């Protein structure tokens, strides 16, 4: 049985003045609070299993990188695993693992995040480590050297995949001004030339409590947890000035095309349309449109559990033998990013024919409203995904934090309601607005056999 932290906090309102945190929102087992140093805390109690998951999110990703520094956010993420004066690299690994914990770090275009999922009575270990490495990462020259080699290997591993190379080229063509145009891992030349001082400076600029969100879900009591967090993070100093991204991508006024040639016999097609941020009113109609075209997106950070065999594009491209697979996705982002459609061609399939069939389906969805059944299916699929995703506290904490990066938790909390409010006319309108050829970047990967 879940407790209601809201009521408990209210009942103790008299003594709340002495507490260092300020409650911003509290509802339905969820609390959002802020420490005086600016650290945002989002908590969700869940007593279904004796585990807890801590995610610390920094508002820094490849979006915050400039030419010459591409890959810095991801590299710094690697360096935060290399240790602090308090915890060596091996000690961090050992302490988490010997408690049976899972941990990792991830960098994306808008954010960098680190998580530990542990037995609930061991979660203080994660709090200690994250508070420590928020400001005390050593970033030693030898570690920078070592991780440069590791990341170059990571990049080479990615380059082995044709789809990585295609996506990198399409992304670069789709953005001329905004840093969303480069891959998170960064360009080879920057990975070879970036210095330790530059990385250290990047870390000190962006790693601070007032640029972070701490998300925690699991088997704990919220009031007690706030105190434990405040004890560890409360004394960390906020950064004086955190640079904001000012780049605005100019409107695209015509189709762009990219061709990548490479090894292998398989061809791929990627269509990328300039999209909207998570907070834009058209975001949810685009999610609905994507569900109709390609099936509902999964709401688990570990991947979707859903097929899309009855989606429009699967029927038009896969069932006809043109493609072996088709997928789509609209990502919740801070700035306008991309709506992606991706198809893997079957052997012998004509790539021009596939693209024509794809555009024909997009024309169809622009000309005539989708059916109510299609929209209902999208909503039911998403509802099921919410239920499945809620089983894991790791997934819950992921969404607590992720939604704060691109909007706020209310955005995620009302996700289903907002999706359910989408009308057939909304779907047709956004199809006409965003899926036009003039907003598209079309990429081909042509396997050379």
């Amino acid at each position, binding site marked *: 049985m879940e407790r209601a932290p809201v009521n408990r906090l209210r009942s103790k309102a008299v003594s709340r003045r002495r507490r260092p945190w300020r409650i911003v929102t509290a509802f339905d087992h969820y609390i959002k609070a802020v420490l005086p140093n600016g650290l945002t805390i989002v908590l969700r109690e869940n007593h279904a299993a004796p585990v807890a998951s801590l995610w610390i999110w920094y508002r820094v990703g490849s979006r915050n990188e400039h030419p010459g520094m591409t890959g810095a956010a991801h590299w710094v993420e690697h360096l935060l695993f290399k240790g602090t004066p308090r915890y060596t690299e091996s000690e961090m690994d050992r302490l988490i693992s010997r408690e049976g914990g899972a941990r990792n770090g991830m960098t994306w275009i808008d954010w960098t995040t680190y998580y530990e999922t542990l037995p609930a009575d061991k979660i203080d270990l994660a709090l200690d480590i994250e508070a420590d490495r928020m400001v005390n990462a050593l970033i030693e020259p030898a570690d920078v050297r070592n991780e440069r080699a590791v990341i170059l290997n990571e990049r080479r591993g990615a380059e082995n995949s044709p789809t990585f190379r295609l996506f990198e080229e399409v992304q670069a063509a789709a953005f001329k001004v905004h840093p969303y145009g480069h891959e998170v891992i960064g360009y080879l030349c920057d990975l070879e030339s970036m210095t330790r001082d530059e990385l250290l400076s990047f870390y000190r600029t962006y790693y601070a409590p007032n640029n972070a969100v701490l998300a925690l879900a699991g088997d704990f009591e919220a009031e007690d947890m706030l105190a434990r967090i405040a004890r560890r993070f409360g004394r960390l100093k906020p950064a004086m000035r955190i640079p904001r991204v000012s780049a605005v991508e100019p409107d695209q006024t015509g189709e762009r095309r990219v061709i990548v040639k490479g*090894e292998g016999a398989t061809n791929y097609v990627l269509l990328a349309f300039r999209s909207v941020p998570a907070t834009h009113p058209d975001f949810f109609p685009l999610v609905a449109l994507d569900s109709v075209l390609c099936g509902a997106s999964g709401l688990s950070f570990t991947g979707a559990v859903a097929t899309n065999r009855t989606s429009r594009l699967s029927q038009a491209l896969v069932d006809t033998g043109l493609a072996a697979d088709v997928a789509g996705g609209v990502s919740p982002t801070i700035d306008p990013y991309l709506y992606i459609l991706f198809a893997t061609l079957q052997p012998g399939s004509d790539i021009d024919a596939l693209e024509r069939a794809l555009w024909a389906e997009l024309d169809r969805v622009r000309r005539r409203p989708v059916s109510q059944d299609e929209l209902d299916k999208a909503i039911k699929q998403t509802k099921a995904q919410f239920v499945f995703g*809620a089983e894991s506290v790791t997934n819950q904490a992921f969404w607590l934090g992720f939604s704060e990066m691109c909007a706020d938790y209310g955005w995620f909390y009302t996700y289903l309601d907002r999706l359910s409010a989408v009308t057939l006319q909304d779907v047709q309108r956004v199809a006409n607005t965003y899926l036009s050829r003039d907003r598209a970047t079309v990429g081909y990967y042509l396997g050379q056999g």
Partner: protein
Amino acid sequence: MRSTKHNTHRVARLAPRAQVRYSSVPCAANIAQAELSNGLRVFAYENFASPSVVVRGYLVAGACDEAPAGPPGSPEVDAGANHAGVNRAGLAAFVADCLMRGAGSLSYEQIFQQIESIGAHLDVSGGMHTTGFYAKSLVEDLPFMVDLLSTVLIHPTFPSEEIERERGEWLTTLQERANSASAMAGLIFNELCYPAGHPYRYSIEGYPETARALTRDDLVAFHRTYFSPQDMVIVIVGAVKAEDAHALVERAFGAWRANRPARPPLPAAPKLQASIRRHHAMPGKAQTSLMVGHPGPSRRDPDWIKLALMNSILGQFGMYGRLGQRVRKERGLVYAIGSYLEGGLGPGPWHISAGVHPDLVDRVIEICLAEMRRLRERKVRPQELQDNQFYFIGSLPLRMETNDGIAGQIVHMARYELGLDYLLHYPDRVRAVTPADIQAVACTWLDPDHVAVATAGP
């Protein structure tokens, strides 16, 4: 900083630290088990934390039944080709992939329309020894999903047109595999590890030649011959009462009567006579995929927990264990490296896998072999073993946080006949392992002088 001073005595009397709520650990006391008259075993575990439910399980039909084994053109296969002269590698997986292309009175489109309209998921996949299935849905849709599962497993119609569609997708997957360095290294590795005629030598996914040659008759015959409720297992975990779950399975599968022929024992998987190395050239690739290893133990080996701990020390714990320390953390030679025990119902391979810069392959192989030798020659430090023991025990709650995780554990216990109280005794069994045990299993199972080395890359 915690003390690092430990000794074997301390390891032997580890405090009971397992963060396991024993009331919630799946065990004989809370797993409702029944066997239908046709031999199907059903296990149900109630979990009302979320209104969802998972169905997992398997039936005994797999690539092992695809005699004769091997790709067309290989002498061992041509000598024993079936009556049509066609080899069958990939047949079991193809059958599984085609089950949902039409079943009972339902067309492919109707099957997926029904599944996707309720936000559910159903998947059937062919493996080496068994064909596995997985369904997930809101609990209100469980009766429908169990009925649908029985329809696709028992009454597939294999429509010709749909088989050709599935074949097209299969050929694409094989074409992509041919351009994947890691997949190609895996194929070569298995060929080096297992002798001609051994099913483990060949790909479960088959080869382009077999993908093109298999016919609808092959599919129908394989299904008719090998799909059977005998020794089949269905596990249901979620917000449903156990008796209701049992009743659903009884209703859907109880009348199914089909016997499959006895499966001959697996051929022997002898130790390699010498180290052997093969490279698959893939011009244009930036990185080389490397696999080093040899045939390993079956999951049913009595030393399995010792082996799993040994493997964790070598290439799993924290960030890839000792290998991660030597190869990534200290030298930056790779992004990822790990060691893997793939033993299942038979002697699956044990291997180290990594993605390596082409110029550094020999150096990484050298370190891998040196670390294998070190485990054989020197006892692990008690502290290192203890850390791994804690990890094995402490990670149990995380592994059983979701319905998926619990169902996976129950299937595992059923498949390998571990007993339903296996997880209750698991912490004690893990704690009982000593450094001498680790050295002993390393000496028995790791053989750095007789390894298969497979590489694929530029």
